[in-house]
């Protein structure tokens, strides 16, 4: 329910001049949209620019935000998706090497290496997808959003989202097919 959106309440507090609300909003939203932009764009510097721009738009709209109209995260994701789309249209090739740093909290070196290999392979496979499929797959399977919310973010119908994610998953499977052994999936 949009009325119970805790981020909308924080946004109202921010608009009323509460400095703590700005910190809480930034802490709640920035990591999610940074991760999303990085996965979609595959470029850290561009992802940072997109996130900063999206947050600026959020700060600016705060005084006019109407409670209950939309979820703050949906709105921000939509801004990020549009900014990513604009950037993707401007370029033809994507540097596959520019994958993000992994956290070093894996339990063992062997597992860490395998996790790193899996993440690198996924990053590369994601970057090989068409832009809309990549956005839909990341929103659905990594950001964990539901299809109706993804439909709002990408401004398409729910059926279109289902189609995009299904085709995206098939393409990912195909892209990763020859790496199954190397990624250790024969043992899974």
């Amino acid at each position, binding site marked *: 329910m949009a009325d119970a959106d805790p981020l909308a309440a924080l946004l109202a507090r921010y608009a009323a001049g509460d400095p703590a609300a*700005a910190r809480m909003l930034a802490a709640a939203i920035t990591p999610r949209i*940074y991760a999303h932009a990085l996965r979609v764009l595959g470029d850290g510097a561009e992802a940072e620019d997109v996130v900063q721009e999206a947050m600026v738009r959020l700060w600016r709209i705060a005084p006019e935000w109407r409670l209950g109209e939309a979820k703050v995260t949906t709105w921000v994701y939509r801004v990020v998706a549009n900014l990513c789309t604009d950037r993707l249209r401007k370029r033809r090739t994507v540097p596959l090497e520019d994958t993000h740093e992994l956290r070093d909290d894996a339990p063992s070196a062997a597992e860490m290496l395998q996790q790193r290999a899996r993440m690198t*392979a996924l990053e590369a496979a994601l970057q090989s997808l068409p832009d809309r499929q990549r956005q839909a797959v990341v929103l659905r*399977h990594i950001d*964990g959003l539901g299809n109706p919310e993804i439909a709002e973010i990408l401004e398409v119908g729910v059926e279109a989202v289902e189609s995009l994610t299904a085709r995206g998953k098939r393409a990912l499977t195909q892209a990763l097919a020859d790496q199954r052994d190397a990624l250790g999936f024969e043992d899974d």
Partner: protein
Amino acid sequence: MTKARQNDDAALEALFEVDRAAPPEVPDALMQRVMADAVALQPAAPRSVRKSILARMFDAVGRAPAIGGLVTATCVGFWLGVAPPDGVPDFGAVIMGVEQDVFVAELDGDAVIWFGWDFEEGEADG
């Protein structure tokens, strides 16, 4: 769904799970820029100024219009006390013990009758 397809989905889900479990760290510089923007664009909070007792009394009475009315009423009251109109007892003089001449108009009997005075007093003209 075939077994191969199930395996593919499971492998893909395992990859997604690894990715979800290790989200990228937000660079500190980015967070600082986001916060700097937030501060720069934040609307000012309404200022709560602590008012003096006099200012709070001024507010309680009703501010300038009400104060104006009070001052006027006070001046009129004071002036009525100093120089009361004819026919109004001078309470100030009474309090101060000053004797004063009282002029009582001799009323014509008929005129009094018009006011019903004779009904109250009976033989008013007698």
